[in-house]
């Protein structure tokens, strides 16, 4: 009888359905909204009804007397509270002054959400109005209201970056363009609204059911806020109904819920309404951006000068720090010898921005890629050729210190252009502009650079893994990485299968409990596949080595001659089945010193903290993408219809084709919303459209045809060669749409979004 042979099977690059999809498709997944603890109370928050005012008095007596109300708190009841946020410039419950309409004044815990809501209506607050400040251009004017004593000039944060000498660059320029770009408020619109459940155990330990994207960082922050040991805080992350960066910072509702749980001694649940989600969760950073760029006659870029003003809003969250990412696009997407960048974030009484997929890069790319088209036209080059001439190449180290070890930028450009027939169509549509008819076609191109190998922003950019092998060859992967719908749990399981030769259903992923999972810096910066993936591979390789060494003893072969395939130990050279993996593990399990719990970590990726001048190789790898947009503009109505998006992404290597397509398609449509339909209207500090009727998300009939190509540059540091991709697909869309509208109509619009009204006005040169 001939020996049984086992072929090597790889899951890498295949279309692997998300592990949690079956339970989600049958409605069984329990999100935070679906969790109720015994004895739980429900909380609601009273928010300011004034934009900017002194609080003269708060009377909670009637609310506290309402049957079913357990506790009403104001700042006076929680003297222990401490400032939160990036600048530590707000208290969860405001003391004597409110600075925006969302400001938290009081909170109620009651038997039901309805009773809590009713109690809010019984709280009496008297205010004395203060002069409002709603235009960031006025924040530094003499006599402007000062919003925080700590910032007498209303400046919340500044960033300066320079390389070369822009004056020299300008002197060398044959063409110079300058424009002001204006980027609006949009918000995450996670389908699952924000929520939290806080419960104190009799020991004083706190368990928090939270949607956070950064559980380990928040443990520390909550501990500081409560003045307790971080070791006494456990954060459990139920499945999250969408993240996109919205859950990277602590927002006041979380500490408020904790205070209520502490006061009442009961579990307290606080869940937003959709209106509250619009009003009291972060936005994307709005930006006023002035860009001046130059080029020589031969098409070489010479310099960029960037001045941006960020409306910081009333308090400081991550939005203020988006310049970290924006400056990378100005300095390093293309080769620019001279760059001068300055950003100021100034306080106003407006909503405040947080982190949002792309983190400033949508705004920066919107400006840079429009200038690339304008300069190409002045130089007299095709916009594609102009980009190719200035595009980064593998091996480049930019003046900002970014080192592009793998770089498929030029491939992205050429593939997206070829597959969309960009060059010919651009000429054709430009020629057709003057033909009769109100519907004009246009095609536009834009590219992006983004971190793809983590981002060394925090002291560590690491992630830990615990890998447990049982005596039936089942693998439990315990990872610090958070799953927010993006599919990290599936990719991490695939990577483990690749090393251990086990089927996907032999892997369970545990990723949602800080008492169990090892440390991780959080799900942000498109880092999870790269960082947590490398960490998981590290643990799996240790396990593999241990198994093969043990198998070598039993089989009298060298470990190097053995392989793990399809749940079996085989001889590498011919795949001959030697023994089932489960049998080997069982014998190991019951031997001395089996140690089948393996730990690994990926502290640190080979990246650098930036210096004070923001120079340094901040990521271990960088992602590149080009997207070409084809659209129609109805010049009679201003309506823009997106027909097709051709995308080429340097993703290092495709790990899960289904998952990565899903990230890119979802990002494209999110970018489409940013460009065309989404607009959080903030007028005099008031959000005018806090609902899905008036805040227009893209719907199924409006999506474009999507043609997606992958450039697989096999990054040397990436897990199986992969790089991060989560944020990339949203970044280019608005810029590509702007360039396509210009191609269709000859009119360049520098403010978002491209609503029918704005396009119509621009076409008639009556832009407001």
């Amino acid at each position, binding site marked *: 009888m001939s020996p049984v042979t086992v072929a090597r099977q790889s899951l890498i690059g295949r279309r692997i359905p998300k592990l949690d999809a079956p339970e989600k498709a049958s409605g069984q997944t329990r999100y935070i909204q679906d969790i109720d603890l015994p004895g739980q109370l429900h909380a609601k928050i009273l928010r300011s009804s004034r934009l900017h005012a002194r609080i003269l008095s708060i009377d909670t007596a009637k609310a506290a007397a309402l049957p079913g109300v357990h506790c009403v708190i104001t700042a006076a009841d929680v003297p222990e509270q401490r400032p939160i946020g990036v600048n530590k410039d707000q208290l969860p419950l405001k003391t004597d002054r409110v600075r925006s309409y969302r400001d938290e004044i009081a909170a109620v815990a009651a038997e039901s959400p309805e009773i809590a809501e009713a109690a809010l209506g019984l709280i009496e607050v008297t205010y004395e109005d203060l002069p409002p400040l709603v235009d960031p251009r006025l924040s530094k004017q003499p006599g402007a209201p000062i919003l925080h004593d700590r910032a007498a000039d209303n400046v919340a944060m500044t960033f300066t970056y320079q390389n070369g000498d822009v004056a020299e660059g300008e002197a060398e320029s044959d063409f110079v363009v300058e424009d002001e770009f204006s980027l609006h408020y949009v918000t*995450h619109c996670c*389908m699952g609204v924000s929520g939290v459940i806080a419960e104190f155990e009799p020991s004083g330990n706190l368990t928090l059911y939270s949607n956070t994207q950064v559980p380990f960082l928040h443990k520390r922050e909550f501990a500081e806020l409560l003045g307790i040991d971080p070791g006494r805080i456990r954060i459990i992350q139920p499945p999250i109904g969408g993240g996109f960066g919205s859950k990277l910072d602590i927002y006041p509702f979380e500490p408020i819920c904790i205070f209520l749980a502490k006061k009442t001694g009961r579990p307290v649940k606080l869940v937003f309404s959709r209106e509250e989600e619009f009003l009291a969760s972060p936005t994307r950073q709005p930006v006023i951006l002035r860009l001046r760029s130059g080029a020589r006659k031969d098409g070489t870029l010479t310099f960029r000068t960037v001045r941006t003003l960020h409306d910081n809003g009333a308090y400081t969250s991550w939005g203020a720090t988006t310049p970290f990412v924006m400056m990378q696009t100005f300095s390093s997407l293309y080769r620019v010898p001279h760059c001068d960048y300055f950003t100021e974030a100034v306080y106003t009484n407006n909503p405040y921005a947080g982190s949002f997929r792309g983190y400033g890069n949508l705004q920066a790319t919107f400006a840079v890629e429009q200038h690339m088209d304008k300069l190409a036209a002045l130089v007299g080059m095709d916009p594609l050729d102009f980009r190719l001439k200035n595009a980064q190449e593998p091996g480049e180290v930019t003046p900002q210190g970014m080192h592009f070890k793998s770089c498929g930028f030029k491939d992205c450009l050429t593939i997206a252009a070829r597959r969309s027939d960009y060059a010919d169509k651009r000429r054709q549509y430009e020629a057709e502009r003057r033909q009769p008819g109100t519907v004009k076609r246009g095609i536009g191109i834009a590219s992006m650079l983004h971190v793809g190998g983590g981002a060394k922003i925090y002291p560590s950019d690491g992630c830990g893994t615990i890998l447990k092998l049982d005596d039936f060859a089942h693998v439990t992967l315990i990872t610090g990485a958070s799953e927010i719908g993006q599919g990290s749990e599936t990719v991490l399981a695939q990577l483990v299968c690749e090393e251990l030769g086990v089927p996907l259903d032999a892997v369970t992923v545990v990723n949602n409990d800080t008492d169990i999972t090892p440390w991780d810096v959080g799900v942000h910066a498109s880092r999870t596949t790269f960082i947590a993936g490398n960490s998981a591979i590290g643990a799996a390789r240790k396990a593999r080595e241990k198994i093969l060494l043990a198998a070598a003893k039993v089989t009298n072969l060298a470990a190097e001659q053995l392989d793990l395939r399809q749940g079996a130990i085989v001889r590498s050279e011919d795949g001959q089945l030697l023994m089932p993996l489960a049998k080997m593990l069982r014998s190991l399990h019951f031997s001395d010193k089996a140690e089948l719990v393996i730990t690994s970590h990926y502290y640190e990726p080979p990246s650098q903290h930036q210096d004070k001048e923001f120079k340094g190789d901040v990521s271990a790898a960088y992602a590149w993408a080009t997207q070409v947009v084809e659209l129609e503009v109805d010049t009679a109505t201003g309506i823009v219809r997106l027909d097709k998006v051709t995308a080429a992404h340097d993703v290092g290597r495709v790990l899960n084709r289904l998952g990565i397509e899903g990230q890119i398609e979802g990002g494209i449509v999110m970018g489409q919303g940013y460009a065309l339909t989404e607009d959080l209207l903030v007028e005099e500090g008031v959000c005018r459209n806090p609902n*899905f009727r008036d805040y227009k998300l893209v719907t199924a009939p409006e*999506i474009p045809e*999507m043609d997606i190509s992958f450039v697989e540059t096999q990054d040397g540091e990436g897990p199986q060669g992969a790089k991060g991709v989560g944020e990339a697909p949203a970044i280019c869309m608005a810029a590509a749409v702007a360039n396509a509208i210009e191609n269709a109509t000859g009119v360049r619009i520098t403010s978002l979004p491209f609503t029918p009204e704005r396009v119509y006005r621009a076409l008639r040169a009556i832009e407001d």
Partner: protein
Amino acid sequence: MSLLREIRFTLNGVARQVSVPVTMTALAMLRDVLHLTGTKYGCGEGECGACTILVDGRSVNSCVMFAVDCDGRQVTTIEGIAADAQWQPLRESLVEHGGVQCGFCTPGMVVQASHVLSRDPHADRQAIKRGLEGNLCRCTGYKKIVDAVVAVADAGGKVAP
């Protein structure tokens, strides 16, 4: 406490009798009284479709329907669709095509897609997109959801009973 009213209706094929406040929405009744949490709150004003249920075979946003209006009707939720073998190909198609990411919109999508296919088992791509227009998804960009439903429609909508 507002006025209570007793109602009887068929929920996922089972006769039910519950007492609900007259001001309560069908969504709140399903989630908070009957503990069927598959139906989601997304907006509370009929704009996002996360709370889609079927009432006498019509798709309804349960957040803008009063619970008392379920009286005497046939109500189907995602839990009913999930237990119904005829919709297994639809659920599997969503999974296989990658139409699920965070999954919060998914129950509403599945219920709505079942409704679209019930009306027209051979619905084409355009009809399916129109049929899902009232269901918002922030993760997937819709393409894979539409692909999943189109694949089931191409296969004849649903398996024979």
